[in-house]
């Protein structure tokens, strides 16, 4: 089983890195891009023998306590069999 965790800044938190990337790409084109926000992506390989429900619960805890900082970040978990 594989889990994917996407960590993104909350909409209320300013993202100066995303802004800088957006500014830079504007100089080479891409006028259709209105805004960029940068995030993080984690791939987790889950050992065999765990149910999807148990895996999701464990990763939920991990994402909340370590991979993301809930003060400033949201996260989304996807599980692939």
């Amino acid at each position, binding site marked *: 089983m594989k889990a994917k965790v996407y960590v993104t800044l909350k909409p209320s*938190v*300013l993202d*100066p*890195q995303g802004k800088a990337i957006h500014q830079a790409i504007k100089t080479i084109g891409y006028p259709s891009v209105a805004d960029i926000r940068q995030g993080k992506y984690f791939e987790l390989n889950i050992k065999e023998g765990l149910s999807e429900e148990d895996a999701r619960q464990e990763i939920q805890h991990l994402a909340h306590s*370590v*991979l993301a*900082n809930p*003060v400033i970040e949201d996260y989304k978990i996807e599980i692939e069999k």
Partner: protein
Amino acid sequence: MKFGVVVFPGSNCDHDTYHVISKIVGQPVQFIWHKSISIDDCDVVILPGGFSYGDYLRCGALASLSPIMQTIKVFASRGGLILGICNGFQILCEAGLLPGTLLRNQNLKFICDYTRIRVENSSGAFVNSYKTGQLLNLPIAHGEGNYFCSYEDLAMLKENDCVLFRYCDENGNINPSVNPNGSIENIAGITNKEKNILGMMPHPERASEEILGSADGRAIFHSLNIYMAEVEKKRR
């Protein structure tokens, strides 16, 4: 009283802090390796500046999982005194011992400079030898010093006089033009509600000797001495 300076892989202000406490303040001090689970007989624990774990994941995030942090959380819950400087402040936030967190500087630059800081409240263990409103000249050196917290936490901090330091101009005025990193309301240092934990981005240990350009930071260590002496007097 005895100080303990925690050493994480990537700490780089640990020796400066040790030097100031032992040679300038003249108090007993020991290093505490982050894998240790004991702070021995230390009365004050300092989390020094640096780049623990190379700032991987988020600044202070991985250090906040080190074995010593469990011991420090128990120490904190019993009212133990903890000072986090720069990366130490980031670690305290990640560990949940202080509210909020530190984001990338708004201008995306690593800033290494002297800043003017105003003492907002001079009561308590860390700042009792300053005067409220006193201006300090302290250096900062960080890429992630932009203090951020929820409205609820900000209200809590202000209500309980937990904001100890703010970036200001040379006359002590607080305004956005003298905010080096984009911190909410120019915040440079905060305590928890119970006032036994201080986190600050400026480096008092780099400004404790006149020959280094400023000795304005020395009074923090001096304040801790005075506070602990009072505590010991009461114990007897």
